[in-house]
């Protein structure tokens, strides 16, 4: 086995397998469990980072275990996969670190760490999977983990919404599986590498899109995501802002940019869906009063932009879309985690009852502002570059109205995020004057804000990785 294959296996199976040890470890010592969880994610991050270096030299790593019926287990590290794996593991590791303090006074911590690590491991597995069946397998594992995590507080409402999230994504995934079986009948295999350049019938594309859109909470499947805000904040940050919803985007890129050829109809339909989703969600974010719901709708809206970028089909647009995944993950993770600190200390999620928190929690406020700037697209934060690329991509491909829609969306983003910041941190103190969070929690938030800034200031490095990914795609107007 080559070292690349070994790294792939480690990146996936260390967290997936190790997750099962965490509940056992937790019976013995809580802090050992926490550190173990963090280490598991770090190992995965390290392996993926090492693979990133390999990929940047233009090579790819593959691990293959043959099974009959075209169900071979194939892990493959190409530019797109490695980029995605590094992003999710990086954000995941920070979130796990944040959880140490945030989650420490609730029940079911064993299950929490189990599920978080399992989730991150499956996410890595999904990203590297080169076979539709195993992609589906990891896809459902993430759905399962998020089901348990959303229902973490065990209240009636929590569990109902967890069920809702699970069901919506499961139904979407089933539709997608039908699409996969359809492809299987045509090609006799589930191996993606063998399908390169295949043109799919419209129905199949629609079915697969059902799965993708339901996972990434895009219109018309968006409702579960704001509802899932009942979960603990690290969970919402992890699943519903930074990582889980990106699965849909990633699979879109993997299937429709790297493997299949998308028909002309879908080249128009996907941007329209994305634009509608972006604008409607932005409108909803403007009127919501629950801090987490605002951020969640903002996520739905931003995901629309990512789709827009990927669907333009131009090189710049796709680069922007991929960069957007990184920037949005970092910044949105930071926003959700700050929201978690605020929610825990202010004991409410209603932004109309907050105000003036800047005085009592300045560090969090600053970090929040930094992340918000990145999402708004203010230079030199990372979000600026990704947005710029996406707009440029839309103009590039001659879809001027798309670019205009996008600018409108960007303006809305700025408005609702300012409103949010204003209501929470500025003005007179209305409710409880919340204190700053614990040192570790604040550190995590600041780290994310700094990373957002750094990714923008040093945009060359992420752009390099993204270019390596785009170089392997087909069907891109260069």
């Amino acid at each position, binding site marked *: 086995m080559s070292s690349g294959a070994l790294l792939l296996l480690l990146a996936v199976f260390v967290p997936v397998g190790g997750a099962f040890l965490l509940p056992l470890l937790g019976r013995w010592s809580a802090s050992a469990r926490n550190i173990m969880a963090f280490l598991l994610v770090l190992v995965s991050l390290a392996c993926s980072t090492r693979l990133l270096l390999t990929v940047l030299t233009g090579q790819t790593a593959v691990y293959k275990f043959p*099974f*009959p*019926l075209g*169900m071979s*287990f194939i892990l493959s590290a190409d530019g797109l996969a490695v980029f995605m794996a590094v992003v999710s593991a990086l954000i995941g590791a920070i979130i796990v670190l944040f959880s140490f303090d945030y989650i420490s006074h609730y029940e079911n911590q064993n299950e929490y760490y189990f599920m978080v690590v399992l989730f991150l491991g499956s996410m890595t597995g999904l990203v590297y999977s080169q076979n539709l*069946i195993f992609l*589906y*397998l990891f896809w*459902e*594992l993430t*759905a*399962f983990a998020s089901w348990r995590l959303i*229902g973490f507080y*065990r*209240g*009636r409402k929590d*569990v*109902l919404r*967890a*069920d809702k999230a*699970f*069901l919506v994504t*499961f*139904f979407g995934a*089933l*539709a997608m*599986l*039908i699409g996969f*079986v*359809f492809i*299987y*009948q045509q090609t006799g295999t589930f191996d993606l590498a063998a399908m390169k350049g295949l043109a799919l019938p419209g129905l199949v594309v629609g079915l697969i899109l059902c799965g993708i859109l339901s996972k990434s909470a895009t219109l018309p499947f968006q409702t579960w995501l704001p509802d899932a805000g009942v979960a603990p904040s690290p969970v919402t940050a992890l699943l519903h802002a930074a990582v889980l919803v990106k699965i849909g985007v990633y699979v879109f890129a993997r299937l429709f940019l790297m493997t299949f050829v998308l028909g002309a109809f879908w080249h128009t339909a996907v941007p329209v869906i994305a634009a509608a989703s972006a604008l409607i969600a932005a409108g909803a974010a403007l009127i919501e009063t629950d801090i987490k719901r605002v951020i969640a709708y903002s996520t739905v809206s931003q995901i629309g932009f990512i789709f827009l970028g990927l669907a333009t089909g131009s090189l710049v647009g796709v680069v922007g879309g991929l960069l957007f995944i990184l920037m949005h993950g970092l910044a949105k993770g930071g926003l959700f985690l700050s929201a978690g600190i605020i929610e825990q200390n202010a004991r409410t999620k209603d932004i109309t009852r907050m105000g003036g928190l800047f005085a009592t929690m300045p560090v969090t406020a600053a970090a929040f502002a930094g992340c918000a700037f990145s999402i708004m697209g203010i230079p030199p934060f990372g979000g600026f570059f990704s947005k710029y690329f996406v707009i440029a991509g839309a103009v590039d491909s001659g879809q001027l109205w798309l670019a205009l829609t996008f600018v409108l969306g960007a303006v809305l983003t700025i408005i609702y995020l300012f409103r949010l910041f204003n209501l929470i941190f500025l003005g007179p103190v209305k409710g409880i004057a919340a204190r700053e969070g614990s040192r570790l929690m604040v550190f995590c938030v600041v780290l994310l804000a700094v990373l957002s800034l750094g990714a923008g200031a040093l945009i060359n490095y992420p752009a390099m990785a993204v270019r390596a990914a785009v170089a392997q795609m087909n069907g891109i107007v260069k």
Partner: protein
Amino acid sequence: MIYLFIFIPFLALIVINLLPQGEGEFAGWAALAVFSAQLAAAALAACGLIGLGGGWLDQLLHFRLLSDRTGLLLLFLAGLVGGTALLSGWRLRGASRSNFINLLLIALTGINGLALASDLFSLYVFIEVVAVSSFVLIALFRERSGLEGSFKYLMMSALASVLMLSAVACFLVAADGMSFAAVRAALAVPGNYLARAALGLFLCGLFIKGGLVPFHGWLPDAYMSAPAPVSVFLAGIATKAAGLFTLVRLVRLAPASADLSAVLLLVGTLSIVVGALAALGQRDMKRMLAYSSISQMGYIVAALGTGSALGNAAALFHFFNHAVLKSQLFVNAAAVEEQTGTRDMDRLGGLAARLPVTGTTSVIAILSTAGLPPLSGFWSKLLIVIALWTAGHQFYAAIALLASGLTLAYFLSLQRRVFFGRLRPELENVKEAGAALLLPALGLSALTVGVGLVFPFILGMFIK
């Protein structure tokens, strides 16, 4: 060696009843030994480590047994589920206990006979053995619902028997005897309408016996009203053996034809959808599981409808999964009922905190039933869908696949109302069930997870 499968339970029955009874402890251990021995023997035989010849007994007895892998699968499952049922009934005392054990052994003999019979009428006789012992088992405590469920089952089962016997009569005219070979030969003759009609009658009878839509009326009542350990046995193996296993045997006799395929697909899909929809509306835990059972059996029938080798293999695999999963869920239901005294899901909640093992194993079972990878249920459903799809029944495949969303929906509602969620104050003092219920639950879910993980590796072997 194959005769042992029939005679060991029979001899154990005699020995148990000849010896002085005492508290019935001995009988329980002896029966457990029988079930475990059968489990081990079937597993070893499937691996080819035990020969399946009749030897000198063949000369002596002329039973004309049929030994193939399909039969071994049923033997294995009978040992597994029978042992599970026995353990979950370990708490029974007095006359109930000895009757329970005796009838379980008789039913086991019946199932073994079913697995080994090579003759249509023998098949019928052993179906009746299983059925009669099931009637009595359901009414074991002689309380209200048990008697009613038992009588309903008896009546429907007798109607099914009448249909099967009419089929036997038709085959007497249409075929040269009752053996599988003769029936197969008769069915292969193109103009033999009588044999076709007989096949249809027999199928109808089996649909009733198996409780498939539209003949499913008795099944939820029987499952729900039976004592907990009995419902494990009934749901896990008894009705499946009588209805579905026989169906597998029968379908393999008939040459592939569009009519047969259409009937099986229609009944299968109807069962899948109707069972799942009905399960959504239940508040009694066991009743929901019963409807879920109907729905899952639909998958097996639909897979048989493809008529392809892959479809048959997938049907058998799902048969295996379904037996394991359903008996595990019924064991969990038994644990819940035993500890809380109710099966009404609206009066339960948050039990995972108090029954951690039961809660966790039931999550595994429901996810596997709903077809969540990488558990075993996913692979069988995937194979069924692929088989349906490649056989050109895309529509049915899509329905079957989407119906697993319904499966997840009703099972999530079960989880939400029983295990997940906050603990109700009145359930504060509930404790975890005893080892007799936990061991089977753990063993069966280990099997679910294990088979799911190992399955890709044995996929190639499985398809052949």
